[in-house]
C-alpha cells in the first residue's frame, strides 16, 4: 500500500512518526500534501481522484497523532472532493477547485498568524512578567510581535518534560533579547505567582472550550487561577477540533517509557500518563485568535462554520476508536 503513495505523503507520514511536526505546522503540511496529491494525480475521472485522496488520507491517519489542525485539513480536503463528486465536476475542474482552495488556505494561514500575534501582543504591557509553558510557535510570534512594538518585558518558563521544549523557548527568547528565567516544572507555582499573565499555545480547543495542551499546562493554569494570574491560550481557529463538536474523542499520545525511564530499567514499574492534558474552560480567561479575544466556550460557534460530512464522521470515529489511549471529548 505505502509503496504506491505519493512521495509527499510518505514524507509527512515519516515526519509524524519521527515526532517532527508541531500541531500548527502539521495542519499546513497535511493540507499542502493532499492538494499536491490531487494536482499530481494521473486520474482520468473524479471518482478515481477521490479514491486516491481517500488512500492518501488513510496513510496519513495511520501515522499521525490526534492533532486538530491536520484533522481539520483532512476535513477540508475530503469535503471538497465529496462536493466535487456530488456535483459531477470533471477531474480538471476539480483540480482547479483544489488549486483555488490552496491559495485561499495559504492566504488565510498567513493572515491568521499575523492577526493572532497582533491580538496577543496587545495583552503584553511594558514591564510585564509573562509566564509561558513549553514551546509554541503561536506564542513565540506573539512575544516577538511585542518585542517589535518596543515593549520591554520578562518571560518565565519551565522545562516542560518530556522533551524539555521550554528550554528551546528560553534560548529563542534570549536570542531576540527578552530576559528569561527558567526553572523545573515542579517549580511552576513560584514562577507563576509573580506574573502578570500566562500565555500558552494549544494542540486543540474542544467544542466545550477545553484546551488540550502539552502536559503540565493544566496544573499551571490551576496555579495561575489560584494566584489571580489570567490565562490566555493563543490559537488560530485551525486548532478548533471540529471532531469534538460531533463528540468524536481526541486521542492523546501516551508518554513513552524512555521519557521517564531513560535506561529502560525497572521492568516491574509502569510508566503512567500522557503527553497532553486538558485545561477546562473555567481556568481560561480568553482564547487569543485571529477573530480576536474570545471566551473558549464560544469556539463551538466557529466550529459549525467548518466543513464536515457523514462519510468523514464514520471514518474518523472508527480511526479514533482504533487508537488505544486516553481520550478527551
Amino acid at each position, binding site marked *: 500500500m505505502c509503496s504506491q503513495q505519493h512521495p509527499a505523503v510518505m514524507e509527512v507520514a515519516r515526519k509524524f512518526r519521527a515526532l517532527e511536526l508541531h500541531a500548527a505546522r502539521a495542519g499546513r503540511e497535511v493540507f499542502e500534501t493532499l492538494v499536491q496529491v490531487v494536482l499530481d494525480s494521473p486520474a482520468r475521472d473524479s471518482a478515481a481522484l477521490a479514491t486516491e485522496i481517500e488512500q492518501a488520507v488513510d496513510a496519513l491517519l495511520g501515522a499521525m497523532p490526534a492533532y486538530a489542525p491536520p484533522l481539520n485539513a483532512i476535513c477540508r480536503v475530503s469535503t471538497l472532493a465529496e462536493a466535487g463528486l456530488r456535483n459531477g465536476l470533471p477531474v480538471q475542474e476539480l483540480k482547479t477547485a483544489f488549486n483555488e482552495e490552496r491559495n485561499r488556505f495559504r492566504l488565510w494561514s498567513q493572515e491568521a498568524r499575523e492577526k493572532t500575534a497582533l491580538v496577543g501582543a496587545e495583552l503584553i504591557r511594558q514591564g510585564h512578567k509573562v509566564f509561558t509553558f513549553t514551546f509554541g510557535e503561536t506564542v513565540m510570534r506573539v512575544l516577538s510581535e511585542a518585542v517589535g512594538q518596543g515593549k520591554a518585558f520578562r518571560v518565565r518558563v519551565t522545562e516542560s518534560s518530556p522533551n524539555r521544549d521550554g528550554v528551546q523557548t*528560553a534560548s529563542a527568547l534570549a536570542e531576540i533579547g527578552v530576559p528569561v528565567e527558567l526553572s523545573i*516544572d*515542579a*517549580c511552576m507555582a513560584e514562577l507563576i505567582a509573580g506574573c502578570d499573565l500566562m500565555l500558552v499555545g494549544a494542540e486543540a480547543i474542544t467544542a466545550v472550550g477545553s484546551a488540550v495542551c502539552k502536559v503540565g499546562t*493544566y496544573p499551571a493554569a*490551576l496555579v495561575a487561577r*489560584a494566584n489571580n494570574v489570567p490565562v490566555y491560550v493563543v490559537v488560530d481557529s485551525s486548532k478548533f477540533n471540529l471532531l469534538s463538536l460531533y463528540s468524536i474523542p481526541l486521542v492523546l499520545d501516551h*508518554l513513552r517509557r524512555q521519557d*521517564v525511564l531513560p535506561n529502560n530499567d525497572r521492568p516491574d514499574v509502569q510508566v*503512567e500518563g500522557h503527553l497532553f492534558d486538558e485545561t477546562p474552560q473555567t481556568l481560561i480567561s480568553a482564547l487569543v485568535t485571529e477573530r480576536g479575544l474570545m471566551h473558549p466556550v464560544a469556539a463551538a460557534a466557529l466550529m459549525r462554520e467548518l466543513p464536515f460530512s457523514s462519510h468523514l464522521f464514520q471514518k474518523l470515529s472508527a480511526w479514533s476508536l482504533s487508537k488505544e489511549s486516553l481520550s478527551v471529548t
Partner: protein
Amino acid sequence: MSKHPAILEVVQRVRTDVIGGAADTAKEITTALATLIRDTDGSNPSSLAMVIEEAVTDILRVTPSLAPPLNALHKVMGVLEEAQADSLSGGETRTSLLAACESLLQVIAGARDKVAQYGAEKIRDGDVVFTYSMSSTVWAVFLSAKARGKRFRVLVTESRPANEGMWTVDEMVKAGIDVGVSVDACIGELVPQSDVVFVGADAVSSHGTVLCKVGSYPTALIAKAHGVPYYVAADTLKFDPTTLIGLPWKVEPIHRDEVLTKAYPDQVSVVGKVFDETPPELITAVISEVGLLHPSACVTLMWQMKMSKKLNELLLKRSSGEI
C-alpha cells in the same frame, strides 16, 4: 576548655550533610548532647550550663532551618533554663537534662510507627494512592497498610531536580507494592485518578502552612480541585515553633547545573527553590504521632513545646546574619 569529641563529630557530620533525613539529624544531635552532659562534671551548675550553651551554639551554626534538630535544641536548652530558674543543683540539672534527651529519643524512635499506623487507616483496599517525591514517613504508612493486608497501587512522579520520586519507586518495588511513575508535569492527570494523596513535610508552621518538596503545592491544588483527600504525614518534631516568633524558612535555590548544561546561553537565568509552601486550606489533615490534626490546629501543640529564650535569641541573630 577543649570541645567534647561527640560534639565535634556531630558538628562535622551536620556541616558535611552526611546524615539522611531531618529526624536522623535530630537523633544524632540529641545523642551527642546526652554524651556531653553525661561526661561533664555536675558539681558546678553554671559551668555545666556554659558547656551546654557553647555546644548548642556550635551545632546551631551548622544546622539548616529544619524543624526536628531545632526542636531538639529547644528542648535541651528549655530544660536547662527551667533548671536555672528553679536553682537546681548541678546533679539535679544533669538528671533532668538526661531525662529530656531520653524522652526526645523515644519520640524520634516511636513517632514514625504511630504516624504509619494512623496513616494506614486512610488507605482502603483497592485504592490508588498518589505520593509526591520521597518521604520515609510516607513509606512507613504504605508498609503499614501493606502489612495489614491492604492491596493498593502507588503513583509517583520523578520530583526534579534530584528525582527522589525514583527512590519511592525503588522502595515500593522492594516492598512488593504495585507502582507507576511519570513526569512531574503529569500530576494533572495522575492526582485526579487517585483516591488519596500522601506527602511528607519538612516543616509545619504555626499558621498551618506546610513546607514540602517543590511541586507539592501544585499537587495539592489539583487534589483540592478534584476532591481527592490530601494528607501530610509529619510527626510533631516537624512542627516548627520558631515560626511562632515570625522566623522565615530558609529554602535552598535550584542550581543552574541541575537545569542547564554549561554550554547554554548566559542570558537565561535559572530560578526557583527546592521546597514550596502549601497553605492549610488545601490540606485535609496532618497525620502526626498524636493523631490527625488540621494544619491550622498544629499551633496548639507548638504552644506546649519547650521553647528556649536563649535559643530564640540565637536564631534571631542567625536570621539577621550575626552568627
